[in-house]
């Protein structure tokens, strides 16, 4: 059923690292075969036959206006409208990928939307390629082979041990007092983004913490967690829940923030276009996190990572 049977959330760490490291531009086909809106479906049929393709973006003066698939051509042959212009039967609301999105997005999109190909746009909105399941499988095979060789040569053994240690750390400490929780985050892993904060919220609820404090802790944690996903190479989120407060430690491995003062200014953002299109990167994250915390320390330098320690006090004993 799924085009690419890889679980973008739960696959092995090695595979996850691959699909978040590779970009759509690394796997896409750059030689584009396109159709024009006025081309008849019959000419599209010939185009597909001659070029050995199963779908084509439809361009009008360089602008992407639709996509036509071999399914559209078969339906046209069957229904008797094969001589009609492509624009009358093409799919107009096209779901596209952006070239600097991680490969995990292409996999999720294929499995999610049921289309077999996605046009790829550049930062400035120009059509630069197309991605099919075959492109992804080919690229993954090449990369996985390389990864297997690396593992076999023993070079990756140390990495794997570190990963295993990290993974073990992620599940540990639950259900203890004082409650300690630890999670890892990965660059551009929006599938799992928010999980650490959701678990923190559940834990606080379980401890009977008042709703206002839970909300502040959840906001601070979520913003810091999302910052790691959006801006860092990945990191850890650690929570320590005591009787009088929640300590949040957000520590990433880089690249660091060049200008902390700007980063703490509302509206200042370095996020790229596709991240903004998901509703992130509005320049509200760090200010939100700081505002929701009673104590807030941030340390960062370009080249090294960013560490944030935030504390949200629990207004105890008072019935909320």
């Amino acid at each position, binding site marked *: 059923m799924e085009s690419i049977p890889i679980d973008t959330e739960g696959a092995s760490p090695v595979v996850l690292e691959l699909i978040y490291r590779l970009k759509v531009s690394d796997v896409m086909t750059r030689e584009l075969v396109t159709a024009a809106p006025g081309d008849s479906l019959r000419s599209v049929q010939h185009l597909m036959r001659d070029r050995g393709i199963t779908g084509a973006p439809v361009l009008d003066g360089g602008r992407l206006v639709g996509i036509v698939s071999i399914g559209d051509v078969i339906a046209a042959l069957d229904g008797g409208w094969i001589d009609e212009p492509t624009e009358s039967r093409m799919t107009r609301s096209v779901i596209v990928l952006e070239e600097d999105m991680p490969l995990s997005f292409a996999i999720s999109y294929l499995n999610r*939307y049921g289309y077999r190909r996605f046009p790829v746009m550049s930062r400035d909105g120009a059509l630069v390629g197309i991605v099919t399941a075959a492109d992804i499988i080919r690229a993954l095979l090449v990369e996985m082979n390389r990864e297997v060789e690396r593992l076999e040569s023993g070079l990756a053994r140390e990495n794997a041990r570190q990963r295993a240690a990290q993974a073990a750390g992620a599940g540990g400490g639950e259900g203890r007092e004082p409650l300690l929780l630890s999670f890892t985050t990965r660059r551009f892993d929006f599938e799992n983004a928010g*999980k650490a904060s959701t678990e923190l919220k559940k834990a606080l609820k379980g401890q009977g913490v008042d709703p206002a404090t839970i*909300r502040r802790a959840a906001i601070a944690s979520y913003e810091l967690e999302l910052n790691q996903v959006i801006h860092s190479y990945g990191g850890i989120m650690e929570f320590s829940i005591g009787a009088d407060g929640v300590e949040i430690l957000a520590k990433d491995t880089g690249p660091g923030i060049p200008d902390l003062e700007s980063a703490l200014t509302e509206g200042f953002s370095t996020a790229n276009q596709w991240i903004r299109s998901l509703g992130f990167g509005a320049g509200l994250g760090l200010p939100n996190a700081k505002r929701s915390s009673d104590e807030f320390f941030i340390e960062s330098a370009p080249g090294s990572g960013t560490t944030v320690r935030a504390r949200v006090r629990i207004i105890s004993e008072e019935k909320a």
Partner: protein
Amino acid sequence: MNISDLKGRLGLEELQGAYEDRPLTGGYSSDLLSDVMAKAEKDQALITIQAHKNTVAVATLVGLAAVIVCNARPVPQDMIDAARDEGVAVFRTGMTQFQAAGLLYAALGSGA
């Protein structure tokens, strides 16, 4: 008015109906998730075009009652699955956010 009244009063398509029905206290319309985190209140309906899993995560953290996806945007299955796990109602409509917010405001204002 309750969450379960949204469907009929605003003419919405219910995509995720496993939720605990309760009174709606208001609505909030935004596509910036950090803004939703900061400003939306518990038991409000979020009116947005952000149809993905992260919207559900934010809704859960803030305690939102429902997410209303506008402009007939496609809602991916993993978003619906996440919403079911968290008990967040998800509706969809062809209306714009402006229209949906207007109807919801009127419906809540009438006190029903």
